[in-house]
């Protein structure tokens, strides 16, 4: 049998009027959304450009945020280093708490929960995902913080010898840890529901194979479901990470914004780009507003990168899987 490698060819398709209209609607829908998004990026860049030009790299490395004096006696100085670090720290805490819990809860819902529990639990999860973040903020401020303070003290007591758990001044409120815990609770439902969706697609014939070989339920999870769901879970985690990075009100209410780079997660000092924007936006002058736009752009770009990494992980895993 002779094999001839041909050139790839274009496939011409004839279409009716209805189909043309349908394609038109689809394309228009996509274009509108895309244009709006492209515009946002463009505006942020346009408004923030002046600040980037004035401060250059210092904008990323400096810890000083000062709008300056109106009479020009003090020059304005803007740097987002503590906020960038703070955003990453808080989001990392949130993800590392939320993802393991989400995995376990999703497995439980898909494979362990008795039927009478499954429906109501899934409902509650979906419903909680719909609770506005303002409410989380208030809850975190009024109710979670007093409790989480105790947890933080316990961690500090036992693990205080590790540098990141040290607390220079014994104040345990409004720390990155508490913000991270609050965010973890906030994103837990959405990460869980992504994981649940992925796990419920796990191929039944392979699960059967695992059981048929004398595997326990946990064995089937480990051999079939977890490897199958790996890439989907990364997607869910990134979704959660994205939300954690961008969350404004909730973090603002439970985190002490301090313009100093801080890695000690139990200490009452932290930052978050999103909260910075929210807290300054109201009273900012024209130049500070531009600086805030520039900070927004930085966050925008970080988010893009995170998502790109995630989608490439998902794609690569998808290829080796099927």
């Amino acid at each position: 049998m002779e094999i001839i490698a041909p050139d790839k060819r274009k496939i011409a398709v004839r279409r009716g009027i209805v189909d043309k209209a349908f394609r038109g609607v689809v394309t228009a829908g996509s274009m509108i959304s895309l244009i709006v998004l492209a515009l946002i990026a463009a505006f942020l860049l346009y408004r923030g450009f002046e600040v980037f030009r004035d401060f250059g790299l210092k904008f990323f490395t400096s810890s000083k945020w000062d709008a300056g004096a109106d009479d020009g006696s003090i020059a304005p100085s803007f740097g987002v280093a503590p906020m960038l670090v703070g955003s990453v720290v808080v989001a990392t805490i949130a993800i590392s708490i939320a993802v393991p819990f989400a995995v376990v809860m999703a497995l439980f819902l898909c494979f362990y929960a008795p039927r009478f529990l499954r429906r109501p639990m899934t409902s509650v999860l979906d419903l909680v995902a719909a609770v506005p973040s303002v409410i989380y903020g208030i809850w975190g401020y009024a109710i979670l913080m007093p409790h989480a303070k105790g947890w933080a003290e316990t961690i500090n007591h036992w693990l205080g010898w590790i540098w990141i758990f040290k607390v220079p001044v014994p104040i345990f409120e409004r720390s990155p840890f508490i913000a991270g815990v609050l965010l973890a609770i906030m994103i837990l439902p959405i990460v869980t529901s992504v994981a649940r969706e992925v796990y419920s697609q796990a191929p039944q014939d392979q699960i059967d194979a695992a059981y048929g070989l004398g595997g326990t339920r946990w064995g089937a999870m480990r051999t079939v479901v977890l490897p199958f769901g790996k890439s989907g879970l990364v997607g869910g985690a990134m979704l959660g990470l994205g939300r954690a990075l961008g969350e404004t009100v909730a973090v603002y209410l439970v985190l002490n914004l301090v313009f100093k780079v801080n890695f000690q997660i139990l200490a009452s000092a932290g930052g978050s780009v999103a909260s910075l924007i929210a807290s300054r936006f109201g009273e900012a002058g024209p130049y500070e507003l531009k600086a805030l736009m520039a900070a927004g752009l930085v966050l925008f770009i970080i988010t893009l990168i995170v998502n790109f990494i995630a989608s490439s992980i998902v794609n690569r895993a998808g290829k080796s899987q099927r």
Partner: protein
Amino acid sequence: MSLELHGTVHRGDFQRHVDVTADNGEVVAIVGANGSGKSTVIHTIAGLAALADGSLIVNDTPWDVPANNQWVSPEQRGCGVVFQDVRLFPHLNAVQNVMFGLRSGGVKRNDALERAMETLSEVDAHAFALRTPASLSGGERQRVALARALVMKPRVLLLDEPFSAVDERSHADFLQLLPRIVRETGAIALMVTHDHSDVSAIASRVVGL
């Protein structure tokens, strides 16, 4: 009615040259080992895969001639296909599945329902017309899929292991039914099969891959 396929079919990295010829009222059997490209041939004739080169001409109409950029889209080819993996629409019940093609072609609901029920009884599937695919056994699903392909009175009938899950008795019925329908409608049937008794029972031509 005539079908001439001479060319290279491909899917992914797989490529293979095939020659298939069929005339009016014929049942052509396509046999071959797993992975020899039988399903790819079915997909190519149905228009779900394109030829890499060569030509597919049905009734003097060029369905797929890469060299001349000639191509007829699957919805315009009017093939009746029974897929190896059946592919019944899960959200529709059996008779709605059979009606789907008729409704796509603009047949009125009541007429379509009547014709669908007739065809379902021809393959002895009218008893579960209102059940959803998920509640049917493998053999029952294949019967519905067969009815779904036959109801359009297609010029070209493509069957990818259509009897693999039906029981022996229905199998025997279908081996009588199929050539009759093909003869009556002057269609062409191409059937992928593993079963040598199928081949000797109904095929007038055999294509080995």
